[in-house]
């Protein structure tokens, strides 16, 4: 295992995050604060409680997940797309590093950044609403699992994309709608029957539901299913990445 290479890539990726601290950290924190103002205060004044949880607190896990998903994808997709775009990927491909090492380094870097961001949003949220975490271990487990899974997904998008437009396409057209419709701001039990069934096909529902359970001990779907769905998505992403590297898809061809 070329651990020095993994460390070199990881450190470079983290350095990039700190170099663009405004874009990486500050802007998501500001947008989260805005969500609190708009949803927490304006709408929260009309919806006081969901499942016995104050609306302001109820949306916190969803908001963290929203940022975690989008940031994991954008961090990882940009990290691998940018060297492809400027051509500096030649160095990575000609280095004595295995595919596994490349994935660990890039996905690790992207996931670390989004986890830090998730924790910052959590800290920001605690300034607006009183929060307690009933299952801290599972909270961290969902946070890490989701960050890693969606960083892998972002990595796939970064390799697949041939233009900046394509890079934005999946997060913009698929992930953001799925997150908004995945119960970030409401309980899916509030939906009419048919829409509740439709929503169950949205994988993000399981992530948010499981994550919310770790905070409040209450969830829309059972925690076991949430965890299972997240792991399934992780395995699907791993399988796709393995295929990409085995065939050299859009990297060595």
């Amino acid at each position, binding site marked *: 295992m070329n651990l*020095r290479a993994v460390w070199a890539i990881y450190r470079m990726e983290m350095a990039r995050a700190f170099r663009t601290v405004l874009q990486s950290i500050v802007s998501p924190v500001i947008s989260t604060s805005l969500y609190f103002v708009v949803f927490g205060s304006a709408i929260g004044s009309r919806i006081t409680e969901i499942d016995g949880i104050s609306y302001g607190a109820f949306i916190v896990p969803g908001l963290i997940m929203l940022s975690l998903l989008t940031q994991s994808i954008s961090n990882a997709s940009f990290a691998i797309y940018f060297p492809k775009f400027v051509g500096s990927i030649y*160095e990575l491909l000609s280095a004595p590093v295995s595919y596994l090492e490349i994935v660990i380094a890039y996905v690790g870097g992207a996931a670390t950044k989004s986890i830090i961001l998730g924790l910052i949003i959590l800290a920001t949220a605690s300034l607006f609403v009183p929060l307690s975490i009933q299952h801290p271990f599972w909270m961290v487990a969902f946070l890490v699992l989701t960050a890693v899974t969606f960083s892998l997904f972002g990595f796939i998008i970064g390799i697949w994309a041939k233009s900046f437009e394509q890079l934005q396409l999946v997060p913009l057209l698929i992930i953001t709608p799925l997150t908004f419709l995945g119960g970030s701001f409401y309980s899916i039990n509030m939906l009419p029957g048919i829409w509740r069934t439709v929503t169950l096909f949205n994988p993000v529902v399981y992530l948010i539901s499981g994550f919310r359970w770790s905070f409040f001990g209450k969830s829309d779907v059972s925690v076991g299913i949430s965890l299972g769905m997240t792991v399934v998505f992780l395995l699907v992403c791993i399988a796709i990445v393995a295929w990409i590297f085995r065939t050299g898809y859009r990297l060595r061809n």
Partner: protein
Amino acid sequence: MPSILSISGVSKTYATGFTALKEANLDIQRGEIFALLGPNGAGKTTLISIVCGIVNRSSGTVTVDGHDISKDYRAARSLIGLVPQELTIDAFETVWATVNYSRGLFGKPANHAFVEKVLRDLSLWDKKDAKAITLSGGMKRRLMIAKALSHEPRILFLDEPTAGVDVELRQDMWTMVRRLREDGVTIILTTHYIEEAEAMADRVGVINRGEIILVENKAELMRKLGRKRLLLELRNPLTAIPEAFSRYALELSPDGGQLTYTYDNQAERPGVASLIRDLEAGGIQFRDIDTQNSSLEEIFVNLVRREP
């Protein structure tokens, strides 16, 4: 001595159906400077990219110091440094960070003293804290070389290293190449400046339309395929070459004042001495005489043109 790089039956057909390499065979000797010449699109960069692991080959085998580039890619790649044709650097990194990154990527432990030496040798030390984006084109080229040398490779690929580079940097670069060779580094370069290959290389390979059409010791190549020209400045211009000289296939300049006789070691054509004797006997007097050797460039152009 076994070759340090062995390319055997390597072909590459891209997904578009374009065949960039056809059954390429090439052995590079340890410690030599090898110049790979070929017109644009001949397959030079594809060949280099396959050896370095950037492009998958369609068939064939490549070994680097005995290590197969697929089965034993770590050992093979750690011996190779690559300076690609394009200036492709992460623009927002500093010189110091990016060179140390390259060293780490190739699995070498941090060695700031060595990286400092590389940067000093390439006149980049003053710029170590500058971001790549602020460097001039020449400085970026030096940075690419520094990155390639950061992990102490035993084989250095220079793909068009002097394209768009000023005279000073070109000379610096060739000094560096000679110094690396003295340290035992094998150097494989592609260049459009054939006079550079002529000045630097021990051996020359010519690639055209994906096929390596010739590999030869440079001096031997010049001897075998090089031509000599005898230029005769005539005292009295001629309107046409007399019939008696047809066996020499002479060329007359448009003004009739100069005769050119092209000859080589291989051709079974009459020699210079007999031509001069015949000219004197035929009453054609000349006031000056000069000979020219054909350059590697002419040899190269002739070779490539000869291909169907």
